[in-house]
């Protein structure tokens, strides 16, 4: 059996009060290094519900089961892609690729900050959803951590939905 999946049975990891700040920090670090942008933390009513027509998600399995996703509007996604590549214009086919990689890096950075997860949680290959007429519904009770971050003047959301 895969050691990461085996550890789920033995040592499931539950979120604690430090996780929201670790998720916030993980996203800010990735954007600072790869997008050369300092994200700001947004709070208030706008922060509570993620919206936007571009969503990238990465599954987590092992000691922690769930999904980490980033959601933003397409204009923000295109801007992020341009800054990652250092180009003013972007090929539309590269936008999904870039947002998926950002999501993957945030997930990897986040799990690397939690000792009990680093070696006992695997990440899936990322998936991107285009369109905003959908709703994320958890199929089981679980925790959800949502960070709303300001990219230029637009919000983007980094969410961790954890299966119980």
């Amino acid at each position, binding site marked *: 059996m895969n050691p990461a999946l085996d550890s789920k049975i033995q040592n499931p990891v539950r979120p604690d009060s430090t996780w929201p700040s670790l998720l916030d920090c993980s996203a800010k670090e990735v954007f600072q290094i*790869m997008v050369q942008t300092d994200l700001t933390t947004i709070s208030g009513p706008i922060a509570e519900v993620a919206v936007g027509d571009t969503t990238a998600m990465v599954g987590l399995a092992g000691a922690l089961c769930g999904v980490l996703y980033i959601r933003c509007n397409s204009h923000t996604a295109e801007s992020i892609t341009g800054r990652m*590549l250092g180009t003013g214009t972007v090929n539309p086919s590269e936008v999904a*690729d870039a947002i998926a990689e950002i999501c993957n*890096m945030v997930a*990897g950075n986040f799990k690397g900050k939690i000792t009990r997860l680093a070696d006992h949680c695997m990440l899936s290959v990322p998936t991107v959803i285009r369109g905003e007429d959908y709703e994320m519904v958890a199929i089981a009770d679980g925790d959800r951590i949502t960070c709303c971050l300001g990219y230029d003047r637009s919000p983007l959301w980094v969410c961790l939905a954890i299966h119980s």
Partner: protein
Amino acid sequence: MKRPRVLIVDDSSVMRKIVERSLRQAGLDLGDVVQAGNGIEALAAVREGVFDLILSDINMPAMDGLEFLRQLGTIEAAKGTPVVMVTTEGSESRVVEALSIGAKGYIRKPFTPDQIKERVSPLLEVVR
């Protein structure tokens, strides 16, 4: 002086471009840079020509970086080619596994050009 030939393996075309740009931003004088989207494509590239350095992601569809490393070890012409893993993996065990089957080092994403240079320069010095 020989300009090193480099193979970049990543399922993300954006990340392949960023890795190449970072190598050049780091001031490395590269020759031909070839890109592959997974381990299968990378093995095909290696069978067609010799590289001085390979940078490979771990988590890829079709054939991941660890399987690529294993199969690379069976190709006579590729023996001695340094491979550096470029990965989001926070998992020490996957990195240790990569090192145990032949990787010369790893770079964790996100990375800066300086981090790439620090890891890659000593390997390219050997080429020169």
